[in-house]
Each structure stands twice: as C-alpha cells, then as structure tokens.
C-alpha cells in the first residue's frame, strides 16, 4: 500500500499538505482551574490544569524564584486498536517529560514563585500525533486557566512519503508504515523551536522540507486555535459586557 496515491491523495483522502479537522472546546470541566478538549481528526484529548497552587510534593526542593511544573500524560486503555494493559508505561513517562519541557519554555514560571502548576492530559482516542495534540490541548487549557505564557506552544508532526513528498499531520497508519516521522513544537509568533524529535534516521537533505512542512502545519493550527479562542472569549465576554462602558461601571 502506498502512502500517497498517483493522484496525490493519502490513505485518508487528504492531500500531502492538508491537516485534519480541528475541533475544540475550552473550559469543559469545572473542577480544574483550566481545561480543554481538543480533537484533531480521530485523535481526541482532554487536558486539565490545576494551579498555580501550593507545592504539594517535595516542598524542600522547591525553588524560591519560580514555579514547579508537574505533568502527566496518560492514554486510556481503549484509546488504541489494541487494548493497553497499563495506562502509564515507559512511553508515557517519556512523553510526560517531553510535554513538561515543551510547556516550560513558554510558561512564565518566575511570576509564580513557590507554587506548582499541574498539567494533566488524557488521550481518549488515538490516531497519530498524540503528543502534538496533547501539547496543543495543554496550551488551550493553560490559556483557560489564565496562566501567563510568553506565547502559544503549538506542535505538529510530519513525515516523508515515497522518499520525496513531505506529509503533514500524520495519522496512525502513516506513523506506523511510513518513513521517518518528525514532531516539532514551536512558539509560533517568534518561530522559536521548543522541541523537535525524529522517530528514525532521515537523510540530511530531507530534514529541511519535512521540518518546513511541520512548521507550516503548526502555523495553520495556531491560526485556527487562535480564532477558536477569540470566539470563546467573545462568547463569555459578551455575556459580561466586556469592553463596553457598562462593564467599566
């Protein structure tokens, strides 16, 4: 089976540079301080933020001048076609660490000294790009929680089909049977790269087109999420008359 048909279509009918449908909702839960549900194609993720609050664990080691970021990434047992026996395995532990590192680049931790920010993400259904969707969902949840950030952290994946065409926002099928896949998390306004990972060896000449395509994917996701966030705040703000004279009184 080819990843890209002769007509230039992928296994799920997308073109090589096309992303999957994004659907999201902010503030879905009332228990956490910030929460978001994000769906990119068939990958569905919920993220919740607790904090900033008092440090609960290891108070002695807590830094005096910045916040501690605590992350947890976990996959539901029914999220993949094969049932997962343990929701938290080595792979999850690795992704937890990656998520923490990527989010730490953008959160203004020095504004919350002696406190802790918990970021919990749960994958409910997985179809490729789990990590990327989790990063995006965590960003939305952090915004919902009102935690100060430098800018968004947006992540996207890309791969290489037939050794020449870069594919953006890859699905699970493309992840498993395709060529090298690359995950990148960027700060989209400044264009800084927060995290980058390749899954297997890739020819040095191929890196640039694949990376460019992933970054373009990130920018597309950023624009879309930005629109959704603005609409969300227009809705809540509208009810409270934000920005009008009535509100100021």
């Amino acid at each position: 089976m080819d990843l890209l048909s002769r007509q230039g279509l992928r296994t799920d009918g997308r073109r090589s540079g096309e992303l999957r449908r994004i659907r999201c909702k902010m503030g879905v839960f009332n228990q956490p301080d910030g929460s978001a549900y994000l769906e990119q194609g068939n990958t569905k993720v919920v993220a919740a933020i607790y904090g900033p609050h008092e440090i609960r664990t290891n108070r002695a080691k807590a830094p005096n001048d910045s916040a501690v970021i605590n992350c947890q990434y976990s996959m539901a047992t029914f999220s993949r076609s094969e049932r997962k026996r343990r929701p938290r395995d080595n792979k999850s532990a690795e992704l937890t660490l990656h998520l923490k590192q990527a989010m730490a680049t953008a959160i203004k931790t020095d504004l919350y000294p002696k406190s802790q920010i918990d970021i919990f993400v749960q994958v409910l259904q997985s179809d490729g790009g789990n990590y990327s969707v989790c990063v995006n969902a965590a960003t939305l949840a952090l915004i919902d929680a009102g935690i100060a950030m430098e800018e968004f952290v947006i992540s996207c994946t890309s791969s290489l089909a037939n050794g020449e065409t870069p594919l953006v926002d890859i699905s699970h099928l493309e992840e498993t049977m395709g060529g090298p896949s690359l995950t990148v998390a960027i700060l989209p306004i400044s264009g800084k790269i927060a995290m980058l990972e390749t899954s297997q060896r890739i020819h040095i000449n191929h890196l640039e087109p694949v990376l460019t395509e992933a970054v373009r994917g990130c920018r597309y996701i950023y624009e879309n999420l930005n629109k959704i966030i603005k609409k969300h705040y227009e809705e809540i703000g509208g009810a409270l008359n934000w920005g009008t004279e009535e509100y100021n009184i």
Partner: protein
Amino acid sequence: MNSIKKNIQDTYTKEYLALNKRNDGRELMNFRDASLNLNTIHTADGSAAVKIGNTAVVCGIKAELGVPKAETPDIGYLLVNIELPSLCSKKIRPGIPCDEAMQMTSFLNEVCNNCKILDLQQLCISVDKLVWVLSCDIYCLNYDGSVLDACLVALLSALQTVKIPEVKYDKETEETTVIENYIPLKVNSLPVSSTFGVFNEKYILADPTEEEEQLCVSKLTVVTNGSLLFSLHKPGGEFIKDSQIQNCIKHANNRAKTIYQLIKAAQ
C-alpha cells in the same frame, strides 16, 4: 483555615436547607440533569460518555479473546474497572490508583454480578477453550459528586453499543476465524444507581455535588431498576431512620425511570 471554611459553609448551607433549597438552586430531593452520548470513542468496541450535572465520565469497552476459567468453562468475562485519574479532581494525587476508585470498582463489579446485566453465556465461543473478555474501563473526567451513578449509566449504555463479531473455532486445529457478522450484545436489566448525601439526621440531599459530598457526613447509594431493588449501601457515618431510607428508595425509583428513558432515547 479549612475548618473555618467548613464552619461558615455549614451554617450557610443549613439556612438554605431549611428553605428546601441548595447552592445550585435545586430542591433537596431533585437530581441533576443527565446527558448521554453513544459511540464517542471509535477505537473501542462500545463506548458512551455521560454527564450528570458537571460530573463527566467516559466508558470504553474492548472485546478480546481469552480462555475461560476451568470451573466455569461456558461463560465469558465482564471486567469493569473505574479510573479516577488525577485530571478529574484536585483531591486525587498522581501516581498510585486511589482507594476510592478501587472501592467503586468492586462495588460496580458486585452490582454487575448481582443484577446479571449480561448473560455471560452469550460470550462463549467454544466451551473450555475460547470466550470473549469484555474489558470495560470507565474514566472519570470531572469529579463533581455522584460519580458512581454516572459510571453505571455509562457502563450500561456502552454495553448496549457493543457489537462482537461471530467467531468460528476449530477444536482440532485450534484455529480461529473471525466472520464479519456483528451481533449486538443482549443486556438483560438496567439497574440505575442513585446517591444520596446525608447532611445531618434531618436533611438528605439527592445526587450531591462534590462540594455537598464534602459537607455531608454519610452517603447512601440505592441501586434499583424501578421495581426491583438490587443494592443498598450506606457505609457508616450519621444514623438515618427507616422512613428516610424508604423515602430515598421512592426517589431512586423515579430517577431510575428518568435514566431508563434517557438510555432508550439515545439509541
């Protein structure tokens, strides 16, 4: 600090309760609205998402093949597991699974066995050799009280969406062939659980929120399907009277009918 807060809330709530009103505007014996969404997870063989007020749970069921127990060779397995990830509440610390989740899991497994919600013989493919194992994992996404009620609704409605393929098993060669002929599961009964919070011996609150659960001294869980009582569970705490239990059962029966209609309507 916490004791002060509790004290203030106690008096505040008491004044409200005397007027038959609660923080969220409900009357004492009113339940929150429930909503149900079927087949939300496409990677699972059956799934449902349930919201009761702000409490949200997702149930996903995976069907796998397994070997039956030697003492019961002709029945399959129905394994129910409740997860309370740290995402759902600030009370739950990350890491080890919490006691509450384990207690809820064993309670739900017991209810499933007592009520015979599934005829487990329909999960048998070949006696003593091959049966279906239905692993039902329920994730709580937002813990806002009465989670067990939501879990049971999610489990039952998810079970009704499960379709298992027909499997042919050759006893001699031990080969299995899956035929793409999907059969829906038959669900026998629909027990509905209703939780009541005992605030003090005078006031009982139906379907308490997380905040109310904190203030309540005891809980009472009634599992019924409208006419039959399956389980009563009151784990210690404040005493309650016989008549109060009867009253709770009456309200639980009405609630069961509402939930029953909800499940019917969603299909």
